């Protein structure tokens, strides 16, 4: 019984191979399936009756999804090297086959799957939206190890191939055709017949559009190739700050190919795979990948079913950037969506946001004009509550005002059907206080989207003490439908992510007063692996909003979240001047604090000379910023806000971009050790009470346990 490659007798000289792993729901390459492919190629070679081979997948929605990640996870360096060499060899044999081969690509064709397809003589893709081609290995801290760094540039040209491999970008069938990655795109049901035709009489005549001259020059001329590679490397270093070795190794392969020919690329690949497999970065990225895959299923203790088989009808209240964004997400998933605001002008503004985003998607060929129409057809702009009776889910994204929100939820309780789940997208209020006094509070949940909703992968699903399991299950299913990662968290000010992030942002305010060079704060954070420093983040969020959040946190959690004096002062100043101005000015080397911020710092320093002084190293800064994060995360665990350490890690990485290669804050804590963190915090606490370690953290430190340790999975309740 074959494991993945099924075939019978050739039909009219053509061997039809059905790719269908018997033991897995998706097709993937393991050592065994590679060896089986090798045997298949021998079979083809030994039979003169076979005049062409046609590969298609037996799994709908999936061609070959890549290498078998579960096998990859446990493989050691030498093992990885061997598998890489084996794959290269088998794919080379495929590429060198004496008879034509064609891959009929429908569904995910990723990583090893695409490397396999590229080794075939022809590739035909279908036009379904599920069809994705790409080499996303970098997302797992790896690079293509079966000739992908060589074959992709050959097909697409170096200029187009580099971003695919360096960022893991994926293409649909049409994009793949225009880049030269597949020969043509067909309707799904026409693939097989076309495949046979290609094998018997070659490709039909078609006009292939030439790449622009500059690309042809860059792709073909050694000097320019090297220039392009150097530029790409600069870009990679700028965005990864050297934390991720994989893209740099991919660049090494390109460089080797440019100087010593394509074969050099294969050797670089093998070495890179050996170096990367089992490295800490790869391990953490893979762990996050598994966590995010696991998060697609509802948690085991959520036994209820959603209120409908499928989310078909929804409404979004509030047509601001957030509301419009959420409405668009829903509409794109074929959900009939009502978008409500209080007057037609505001609704119109929301629709314009949606139009703009759709137009840009169409311009980038991510969407056809027909799909745009289809999406727009699903959005019904309203200023009343008509049609809400039929909705499965209503998401409120209106102004952050408790009284107004309560009123809206009271109205909603009446305007919707008895089973409609009512969700709030609040960030500064708790769900329970909004639900207070609202009839049927069991229908109310929080769905906290992050801004901008179409880009941010995380949605916090907030349950209150009254939320029914059915409502929670509905909300969870909705988040899955939108293609987001949903983490179920408890109800508290800031929920999980913003609560954990609050001490980090606040500490930056204290640090600003203390450090000699304020820009060191951001540099340290970025060096640690954050996507941007806290000062830049504060500017992005808006200082007035940040100040507002800080006040909220202080009100909810007391002294340990008391806003740093600088934040308080700046908050007041900004609110008076109506928000607007930023902390940082200028770019690159000219970047500096805004003059009025510097002046405020001077003023504060004179009023209360700081005891710690300006001699803080980056290491100190990191500890001051990140340890309170871990401390607050420990509190969230002990309060049951997050149900496990894995949830915290996933939420912080997906919600804030917290150093993915470190695996999230609690994984990082386990690397450092609870004991050391606790001791450091104790030291800080002598002069800064806010740093006092949480009970859970102290217990862990005393037991020398880990957040992720099996035995400490259930943390002692405080």
């Amino acid at each position, binding site marked *: 019984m074959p494991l993945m490659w099924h075939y019978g007798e050739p039909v009219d000289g053509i061997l039809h191979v059905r790719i269908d792993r018997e033991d897995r729901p998706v097709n993937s390459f393991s050592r065994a399936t590679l060896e089986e492919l090798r045997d298949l190629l021998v079979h083809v070679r030994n039979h003169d009756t076979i005049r062409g081979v046609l590969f298609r997948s037996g799994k*709908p*929605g999936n061609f070959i999804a890549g290498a078998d990640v579960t096998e990859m996870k446990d493989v050691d360096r030498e093992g990885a090297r061997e598998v890489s060499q084996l794959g290269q060899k088998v794919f080379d044999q495929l590429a060198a086959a004496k008879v034509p081969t064609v891959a009929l690509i429908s569904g995910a064709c990723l990583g090893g799957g695409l490397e396999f397809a590229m080794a075939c003589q022809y590739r035909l893709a279908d*036009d*379904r*939206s*599920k069809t994705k081609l790409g080499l996303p290995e970098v997302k797992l801290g790896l690079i293509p190890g079966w000739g992908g760094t060589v074959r992709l540039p050959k097909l697409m040209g170096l200029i187009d191939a580099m971003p695919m491999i360096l960022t893991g970008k994926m293409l649909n069938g049409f994009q793949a055709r225009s880049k030269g990655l597949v020969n043509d795109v067909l*309707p*799904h*049901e026409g693939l097989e017949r076309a495949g046979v035709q290609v094998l018997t009489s070659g490709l039909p005549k078609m006009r292939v559009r030439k790449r622009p001259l500059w690309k042809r020059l860059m792709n073909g001329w050694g000097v320019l190739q090297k220039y392009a590679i150097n530029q790409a490397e600069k870009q990679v270093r700028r965005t990864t700050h050297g934390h991720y070795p994989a893209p740099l190794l991919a660049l090494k392969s390109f460089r080797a190919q440019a100087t010593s020919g394509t074969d050099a690329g294969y050797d670089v690949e093998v070495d890179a795979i050996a170096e990367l497999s089992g490295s800490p970065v790869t391990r953490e990225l893979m762990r996050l990948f598994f966590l995010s895959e696991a998060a697609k299923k509802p948690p085991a203790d959520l036994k209820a079913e959603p209120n409908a088989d499928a989310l078909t009808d929804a409404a979004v209240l509030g047509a601001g950037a957030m509301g419009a964004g959420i409405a668009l997400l829903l509409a794109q998933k*074929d959900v*009939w969506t*009502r978008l409500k605001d209080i007057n*037609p*002008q505001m*609704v*119109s503004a929301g*629709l*314009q946001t949606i*139009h703009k985003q759709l*137009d840009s998607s169409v311009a980038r060929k991510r969407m056809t004009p*027909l799909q745009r*129409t*289809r999406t727009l*057809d699903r959005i*019904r*702009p*309203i*200023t009343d509550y*008509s*049609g809400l*009776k*039929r909705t499965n889910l209503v998401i409120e994204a209106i102004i952050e005002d408790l009284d107004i929100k309560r009123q809206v939820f009271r109205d909603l309780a009446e305007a919707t059907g008895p089973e409609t789940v009512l969700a709030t997208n609040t960030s500064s209020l708790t769900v329970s206080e909004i639900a207070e006094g609202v009839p049927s509070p069991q229908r109310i949940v929080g769905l906290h989207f992050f801004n901008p909703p179409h880009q941010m992968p995380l949605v916090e699903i907030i349950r209150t003490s009254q939320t029914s399991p059915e409502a929670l299950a509905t909300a969870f299913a909705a988040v899955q439908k939108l293609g987001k990662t949903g983490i179920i968290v408890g109800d508290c000010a800031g929920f999980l992510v913003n609560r954990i992030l609050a001490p980090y942002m606040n500490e930056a305010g204290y640090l600003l007063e203390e450090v000699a060079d304020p820009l060191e704060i951001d540099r340290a954070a970025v060096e640690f692996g954050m996507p941007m420093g806290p000062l830049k983040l504060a500017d992005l969020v808006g200082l007035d909003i940040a100040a507002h959040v800080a006040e909220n946190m202080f009100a909810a959690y007391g002294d340990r979240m008391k806003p740093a004096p600088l934040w308080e002062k700046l908050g007041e100043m900004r609110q008076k001047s109506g928000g607007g101005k930023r902390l940082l000015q200028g770019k690159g080397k000219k970047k500096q604090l805004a003059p009025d911020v510097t002046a405020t710092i001077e003023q504060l320093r004179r009023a209360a000379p700081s005891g710690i002084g300006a001699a803080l190293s980056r290491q100190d800064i990191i500890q001051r910023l990140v340890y309170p994060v871990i401390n607050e995360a420990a509190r969230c665990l002990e309060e049951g806000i997050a149900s496990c350490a894995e949830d915290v890690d996933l939420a912080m990485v997906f919600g804030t971009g917290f150093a993915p290669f470190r695996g999230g804050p609690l994984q990082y804590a386990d690397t450092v050790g609870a004991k050391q963190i606790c001791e450091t915090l104790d030291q800080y606490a002598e002069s800064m009470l806010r740093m006092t370690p949480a009970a859970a953290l102290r217990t862990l430190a005393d037991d020398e346990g880990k957040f992720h340790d099996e035995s400490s999975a259930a943390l002692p309740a405080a």
Partner: protein
Amino acid sequence: MGSEAELRDSAFPSWGLGTKHELLDMHDREGPMANAVIVEGVRTPFVKAGGPLTDVPAPELGRMVVRELLDRANLDPHTVDELIAGNVASPADSANVARVIALRCGMSRASIAHTVNRNCASGMESVTEAVARVESGAARCVIALGVDSMSNIPVFWKKKFGEKLFAVVKSRNLAQKLGALGRFRPSDFQPQVGIEMGLRDPVSGLMMGDTAEKLARTYDISREEQDEFALRSHLRAADAWKEERLSGETMTAYAGRKSMPVEQDIGPRDNQSLTALAKLKPYFDRRWGTITVGNACQVTDGAVALLIMDEETAKIHGLEPLGRIRGSAYAGCDPSVMGLGPVYASAKALKASSMKLSEMELVEINEAFAAQVLACLKAFENPPEDCEAYEDRTLLGPLDPEILNVNGGAIALGHPVGATGTRLVLTALKELQRRNQRIGLATLCIGGGQGAAVIVERIAA
């Protein structure tokens, strides 16, 4: 992976999905015929062609209004068995615009849809057909739609232009090409305005305005009388908006890429005056005529939808009926006096339902032209010989102007040809409801020499 999901991904857009709503098997049906009721109705604002709805083609206009209708009734689109659309301008990209709209609104693929064209009465035709479908038991839930985007009526090239252009494309070498190019004459470049062609009756050869001029001459209706009637239409429509009598039947339309909200009819002028109207030149008969753009209906974009169900189904969905069609008729007449259509059709409809004009509490006569409505009023009292009311003078008779077009008519609101018929039914029912009255007549003339009339009856809650 279900086959449904597979289909969803197929190349052809699948606007609507889901289980087929089972039609009532008409053969199993026992007892009397089904009672068709009008449950809900809504329309877009009527907007002068070239106005803010210019960028909204007919399928989009129809989609908007049908979605609104479904949501106002909180109705699952899969409940709808059939959609019938009245449409005249026939958008070139949607041969059967009804089906396009039905699928874009999420109705079941198994549902059916067709487009009807009885020129100016297309929107009324959709209503009477929908009622007939329900009453025959062939459907339980039908949407009757009237939709036209007169902004989007194309401009055509002459046939000769096309032929010469084709010759240029076909020519094999430069000499041939130059020769072919040389055969163009300036007159070939004159565009054929689609709307103008549409408004000419090809049998009598008269423009619609010419038929109104004929009525004005025959029935001796002066320019002043016409202008006064036009003014009345504007003032009544403007008042109706001020007193929020029309807002109940309209929705807010969000037009085009800018999503500009259109909340009101754009047409009625509260500052319209006799002096302003008097200044306008006659449009059709420039020397001796009386018809101006001021006392004729406006060219307009708009869509109207009615939800029509059998009584039982409405009850099951918890919907309260607005009213029903008590009787209806279409009647033919001389195309050159097509404006008298309402006289012929009203007499026929009243006779068929054993009623008289005097019993009507409210009357809507479409204002194609002021002269045409005024001629109808005179003909009601003194019907032409070939009209059924000629023998039975009690059928029609004088009409109290106070119950005629109380919220203004097409002179102020405009006449999106395929939509107006549906609007008259909607407006009449909503106004009967507001006045707490029971019975009314909605009638219009039809280019080409016909009339349409329906007697609407409100069902009080």
